[in-house]
């Protein structure tokens, strides 16, 4: 490139050293055939917030006071604005009219950071000093923007419709494969799981694609990346194009609504006064338009989850979305309140939160607008779990619980059941034991059943519902090798009672991973158990396979329940990478990657088939699968054929190389002999171990021996 420029300059007689490069302006849209490779970079830079006057606010509608009252007014303003942030030294300027020496009714306040300035605007805009002085507060940077607004309204330009790409094209893969994304080192890569060929098939790879992590949207349409300036989503028919960006400086965490209509982003900022808590900024974007639907700002304390023992810090996601794909409601917990918002207007339902004294935790049904709240014991009040219908905010069920130390809620994936794990104190208050309250949400009056383990002192290590099913598994026990029990909410002879199916004794397991289609379950022994895996069939109550992925840290089923990925991420130094298994525990392939950070299957949207149709397919599976089995057979034949051929070629190549060398070696035989002074030592013979007796006379010594004759 530089060579070209120099050559052209020489031809035109231009002295390059005299050229002021920065003064050159190209006509818009013209690049003279020079494609800039830093387009992306420049684009991103404009996103960075302007450091200029972003930290200054303009306060209007102040009283206009004479000289004598100037100081008093200044003190009042300083008091109001000094509470919000640290005003810079000489950062408060209230201009006066030089003729009358009266103030002009406005002032400028300069903070250390733009965040403080923004907070000041948000908090004091509309502040009522007295009846006739209601503050109008603006960012200094915005003044110019407001000046530019034309006085007359003009209709917006209508852009012609351009059809977008099919963002769900990956679902139409002829081989019905699934995709996954991995991050290793600096690279982020999307691949097909080509289980037939026992290897992944690359789709798209990009170094430095994200600055921290990547995340699929819940229906798999988008892949979100995180950057200093904000988040971005990617997708497309054949490759991954950037579809939208969401400006949010220093974004740390993101969360999609379940129907992927909205994206919630979170950042936390150091306060300029170290005594203050961190400042939290949350934006809710419309995913498709990129528009900010609502933002929330405040101190970290305001967003921390309340609890009896004080603040427990911010727990993500702060806003939890109601189940279902219509993304209608979202909620957050506060001190003594649960705030439920609706997405029509992005405001609180009925303009007020649900007041629940001492509320500690809440969760949504995964399918219906039902909220479950947990309130711990307080004084004489027992602890309780209540269900609220939204938007009516009507309490539809409540259960009081006594001597409770903690509660945890587990919803079954279709919202039919809710299991509440209740830890209770024993009479002596010295230890706790655990039981379950099982809610049948879809039945009339929501009946509740209590389940206690056979051995009440058993600790609960893990609990998991069968997706779409009526069964659940519990790991329990006090031994180094715990037991695993399976229960059903309906068995053939007892449709409305919970009953135990079986207990597996002394297992090396501490985590449960159900297949997304139910029936199969992995009993995993992570951490202390070093990555033990047991693939279990819950229909037949039998183990299909046991295996190990040494030091495995993560397990994830593919969205169809056909394959499982186990990975060792960079929390360990050795053996980083992932394994792909079939649902029944057969290791299909293994990929090692140093500095392996993340493995994530691309989710699929729910099937359009009705449950009846799905059942029909399952029944006639043999008929449907014939075709695929034949294809599988062909591929596996082809593979082994190719493999043999490859080996044969390698072997031949090697042999020809060796033979060539043998010839040289033969030719050089004489030279070698010469180097060894004529010794022929090329020919090797096996050595023979011989024992040789070797006698040496060390010394001869004569001695007179006396005889004794008395025999």
């Amino acid at each position, binding site marked *: 490139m530089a060579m070209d420029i120099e050559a052209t300059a020489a031809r035109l007689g231009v002295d390059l050293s005299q050229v002021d490069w920065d003064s050159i302006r190209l006509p818009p849209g013209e690049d003279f055939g020079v494609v800039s490779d830093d387009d992306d970079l420049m684009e991103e830079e404009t996103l960075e917030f302007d450091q200029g006057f972003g930290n200054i606010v303009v306060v209007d509608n102040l009283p206009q006071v004479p000289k004598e009252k100037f100081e008093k007014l200044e003190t009042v303003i300083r008091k109001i604005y000094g509470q919000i942030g640290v005003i810079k030294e000489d950062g408060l300027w209230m201009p006066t009219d030089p003729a009358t020496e009266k103030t002009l009714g406005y002032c400028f306040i300069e903070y250390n950071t733009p965040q403080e300035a923004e907070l000041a605007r948000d908090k004091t805009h509309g502040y009522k000093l007295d009846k006739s002085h209601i503050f109008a507060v603006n960012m200094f940077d915005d003044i110019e923007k407001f000046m530019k607004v034309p006085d007359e309204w003009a209709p917006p330009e209508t852009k012609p419709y351009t059809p977008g790409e099919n963002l769900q094209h990956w679902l139409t893969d002829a081989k019905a494969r699934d995709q996954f994304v991995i991050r290793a080192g600096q690279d982020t890569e999307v691949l097909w799981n080509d289980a037939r060929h026992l290897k992944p098939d690359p789709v798209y790879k990009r170094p430095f694609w994200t600055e921290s992590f990547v995340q699929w949207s819940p229906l798999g349409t988008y892949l979100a990346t995180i950057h200093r300036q904000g988040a971005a989503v990617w997708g497309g028919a054949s490759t991954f194009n950037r579809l939208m960006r969401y400006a949010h400086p220093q974004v740390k965490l993101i969360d999609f609504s379940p129907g992927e209509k909205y994206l919630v982003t979170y950042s936390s900022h150091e306060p300029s006064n170290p005594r203050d808590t961190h400042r939290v900024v949350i934006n809710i974007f419309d995913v498709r338009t990129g528009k900010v639907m609502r933002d929330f700002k405040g101190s970290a304390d305001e967003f921390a989850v309340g609890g009896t023992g004080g603040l427990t810090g911010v727990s993500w996601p702060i806003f939890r979305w109601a189940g279902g794909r219509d993304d209608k409601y979202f909620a957050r917990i506060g001190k003594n309140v649960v705030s439920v918002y609706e997405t029509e207007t992005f405001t609180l339902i009925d303009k007020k939160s649900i007041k629940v004294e001492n509320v500690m935790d809440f969760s949504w049904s995964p399918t219906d607008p039902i909220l479950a709240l947990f309130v711990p014991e307080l004084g004489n009040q027992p602890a309780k779990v209540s269900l609220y219908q939204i938007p009516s905010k009507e309490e539809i069920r409540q259960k009081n619980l006594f001597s409770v130390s903690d509660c945890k809620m587990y919803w079954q994936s279709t919202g039919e059941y809710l299991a509440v794990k209740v830890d209770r104190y024993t009479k002596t208050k010295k230890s706790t034991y655990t039981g379950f309250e099982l809610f049948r949400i879809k039945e009339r009056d929501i009946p509740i059943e209590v389940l206690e383990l056979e051995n009440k002192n058993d600790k609960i290590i893990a609990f998991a519902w069968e997706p779409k099913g009526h069964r659940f598994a519990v790991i329990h026990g006090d031994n180094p090798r715990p037991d695993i029990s399976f229960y059903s909410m309906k068995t053939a002879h007892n449709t409305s009672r919970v009953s135990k199916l079986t207990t597996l004794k002394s297992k090396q397991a501490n985590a449960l991973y159900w297949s997304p289609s139910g029936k199969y379950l992995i009993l995993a022994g992570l951490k202390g158990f*070093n990555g033990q895996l047991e693939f279990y069939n819950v229909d037949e109550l039998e183990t299909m396979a046991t295996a190990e992925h*040494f*030091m495995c840290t993560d397990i994830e089923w593919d969205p169809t329940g056909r394959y499982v990925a186990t990975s060792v991420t960079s929390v*360990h*130094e*050795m*053996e980083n990478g992932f394994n792909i298994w079939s649902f029944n525990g057969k290791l299909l392939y293994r990929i*090692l990657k140093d500095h392996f950070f993340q493995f994530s299957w691309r989710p699929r949207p729910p099937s359009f088939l009705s449950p009846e149709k799905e059942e029909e397919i399952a029944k006639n599976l043999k008929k449907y699968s014939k075709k695929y089995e034949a294809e599988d057979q062909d591929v596996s034949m082809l593979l082994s054929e190719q493999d043999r051929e490859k*080996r044969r070629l*390698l*072997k031949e*190549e*090697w*042999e020809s*190389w*060796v033979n060539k*060398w*043998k010839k*040289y*070696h033969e030719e*050089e035989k004489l*030279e*070698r002999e010469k*180097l*060894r*002074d004529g010794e022929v*030592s090329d020919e090797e013979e096996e*050595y023979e*171990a011989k024992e040789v007796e070797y006698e040496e006379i060390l010394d001869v010594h004569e001695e007179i021996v006396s005889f004794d004759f008395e025999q």
Partner: protein
Amino acid sequence: MRPILMKGHERPLTFLKYNRDGDLLFSCAKDHNPTVWFADNGERLGTYEGHNDQTAKLWDVKTGKALYTFVFDSPARSVDFSVGDKLAVITTDPFIEKTSAIHVKRIAADIKDQTDESVLVMKGPRGRINRAVWGQLNKFIISAGEDAIVRMWDPLTGQEIMSSRDDDNHKKQITSLCLSTDGSHFLTGSLDKSAKLWDSRTLTLIKTYVTERPVNAVAVSPLLDHVVLGGGQDASAVTTTDHRAGKFEAKFYDKAS
């Protein structure tokens, strides 16, 4: 097959070598006492006593007598005799302000004529040179070490003739190098978790064997098309992980595939 355990060294072993016939095994350790053993039964035949730091010594295998001592100003790392035993190549470590070096010494037929003088001294590679061996017909010296590059030197002029290409290179320190019996190819093992097989005339890369752990030692089978890689994690990390994670194993690979 029952392993024969040979006990005798007081410090960690550094090097093992069979003699050409294969009936004697020579072992070196950090205890300064090279030892020779009967390969068949593991019986100790004798030790070579009197070794000290920063030297290379020439011993009489039979009598155990130190014939000559080459004195260096930094620790000596590896030795190799040329075909015909008339020359030896010795590498020395970087030490205080000395850089690493490859020394070629002439081995006199009569020990009375032996001198300390180096025929050649080659310098250049950064860091330790872990091995230097004689190539085909003593026409080359092949070296490898911490800088991860395999180099070939002219033993007459001391010039570097060629070095491995950037795309072929190991990514981390080369820990060992082993020549095949006929000298046609050699194997290098590296901390980058791979071993590579090279053509010893042209220094072209023939094969790369990728493993899951750093390679500390390599060997080429004299009879079969096999290579053996031995490895494990860095010694400094041994105590921090499960013994199985360290993976101290020897792995056999088919040379050709």
